[in-house]
């Protein structure tokens, strides 16, 4: 009992510490100059958007000049068939331009890299989001390969500790999400994909919640890619009945087919599109709410509001921890549902027949 109380106090303390860390940078950067007006929109956008450097904090030197502290990340650009790789620190936070051969790169006011002569750039830089995603990937690879070793080491024995915790989740995904949707016959083929999907989204959601972290899973490119993978998996595994249902829904009058077929066809795309928007909106929305609450403290410049906002942030943080798990669960659930619909065999039609 005592250890639980201690743990609770420790986590509470850590939470306040986290808030303490997350607030000053905002203060230092946006609200620091007394004359400058604090712009919550810019602050929030800056936190939610991707960036070429991992911004940690700003400090003012003796002359009152502001210096941002950030981790430089590699910039990788394809411009006119040539590959240019340099660290983002070369821009000096956007103040200087980078010249690579005939290409001159500049950072515009939105933080985008532009070529001075208007050349087209294919930008595959390791941005903040990409770096955060790499960390997430390493975490889950390390976590589950070491977990697998535990399974090999104590084969046949009862799981314990971390193994037990993750086994609970793995078994939950398998028995409550994947098997009911895919059926006993086919689930084994898709289970690795769905488990990876769940933990990949979850770990990125969690990393996004760490103050100073990136909003990877709340970036539309991230959610779009995962939704496209779901789209591909669903439609590649789609069987005859799945396509039959889309273009020639059984038991529907021919005249209605003219309207129904296009709707069903659009449905193929709207399903993953909804997945993309749902994850993006939930995670980015959560971040925006927390940052808005933090902004109150700087807008009102009052202790009372600051404390009230902090309390609100604590509540939101807990909610976001829940949302992080929930959204990865929903993404996985819907993906398995879509795949299940694509690979379903006859049962579906029998159901229809019974209804008529």
């Amino acid at each position, binding site marked *: 009992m005592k250890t639980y109380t201690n743990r609770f106090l420790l986590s509470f303390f850590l939470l306040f510490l986290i808030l303490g860390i997350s607030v000053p940078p905002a203060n230092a950067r946006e609200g620091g100059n007394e004359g400058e007006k604090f712009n919550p929109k810019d602050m929030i956008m800056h936190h939610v958007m991707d960036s070429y450097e991992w911004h940690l904090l700003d400090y003012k030197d003796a002359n009152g000049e502001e210096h941002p502290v950030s981790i430089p990340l590699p910039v*990788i650009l394809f411009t006119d068939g040539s590959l240019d790789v340099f660290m983002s620190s070369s821009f000096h936070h956007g103040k200087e331009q980078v010249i690579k051969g005939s290409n001159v790169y500049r950072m515009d006011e*939105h933080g985008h890299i532009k070529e001075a002569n208007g050349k087209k750039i294919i930008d595959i830089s390791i941005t903040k989001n990409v770096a955060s*995603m790499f960390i997430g990937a390493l975490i*889950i*690879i390390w976590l589950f390969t070491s*977990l697998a070793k535990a399974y090999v080491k104590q084969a046949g024995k009862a799981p314990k500790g971390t193994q037990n915790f993750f086994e609970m989740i793995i078994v939950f995904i398998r028995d409550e999400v994947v098997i009911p949707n895919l059926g006993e016959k086919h689930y084994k083929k898709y*289970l690795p994909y769905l488990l990876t999907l769940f933990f990949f989204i979850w770990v990125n959601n969690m990393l996004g919640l760490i103050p100073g972290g990136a909003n990877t899973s709340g970036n539309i490119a991230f959610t*779009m890619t995962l939704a496209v*993978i779901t789209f591909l998996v669903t439609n590649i595994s789609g069987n005859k009945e799945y396509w039959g249902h889309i273009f020639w829904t059984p038991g529907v009058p021919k005249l209605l087919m003219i309207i129904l077929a296009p709707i069903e066809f659009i449905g193929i795309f709207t399903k993953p599109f909804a997945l993309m928007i749902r994850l993006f909106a939930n995670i980015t929305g959560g971040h925006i709410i927390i940052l808005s609450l933090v902004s109150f403290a700087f807008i009102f410049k009052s202790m009372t509001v600051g404390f009230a906002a902090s309390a609100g942030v604590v509540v939101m943080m807990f909610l976001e921890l829940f949302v992080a798990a929930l959204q990865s669960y929903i993404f996985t659930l819907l993906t398995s549902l879509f795949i299940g619909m694509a690979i379903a065999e006859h049962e579906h039609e029998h159901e229809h027949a019974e209804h008529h």
Partner: protein
Amino acid sequence: MDLVTPGVGLIFWTALTFIIVLLILRRFAWKPILGALDEREKSIAESLEAAEKAKQEMATLNLENQKLLQEAKSEREKILRDAKTVAERLVNEAKERAIEESNRIIASAQEAIRNEKQAAMTEVRNQVAHLSLTIAEKLLRNELSNKSTQIDLAKSFMNEIKEN
């Protein structure tokens, strides 16, 4: 608008990272973990089944034991019953034989008695005849010691013969 414009870089890296993570985890994590889970579940199911089977076997064994016991009991009863009848028969037979034997002995004894009696009677008869002869001889001798008696006797004989 920036917020909802997907960047090519992140799309590329997300796809690459996800696929690499998927391939690594599928080979080095999910395969052993899910395999171990399956195996454990199978072994649990098997153990439960084995336990159930053992229970059933126990029950049948118990039933068999009961049956065996019952059989042994009835066997014992049967043996006892048989032994009893055999003993009874033997006793009866012995009794009958004894009666027969005694009857035979009695019969032979009676026979012997009868024979002895006969022999004794014959003996007695012989003795009597001998005694009477001796007595008669002594009497005759006494009678015939004087003349007149002899003549009387001879005369009586003669008379007797004449009468015949």
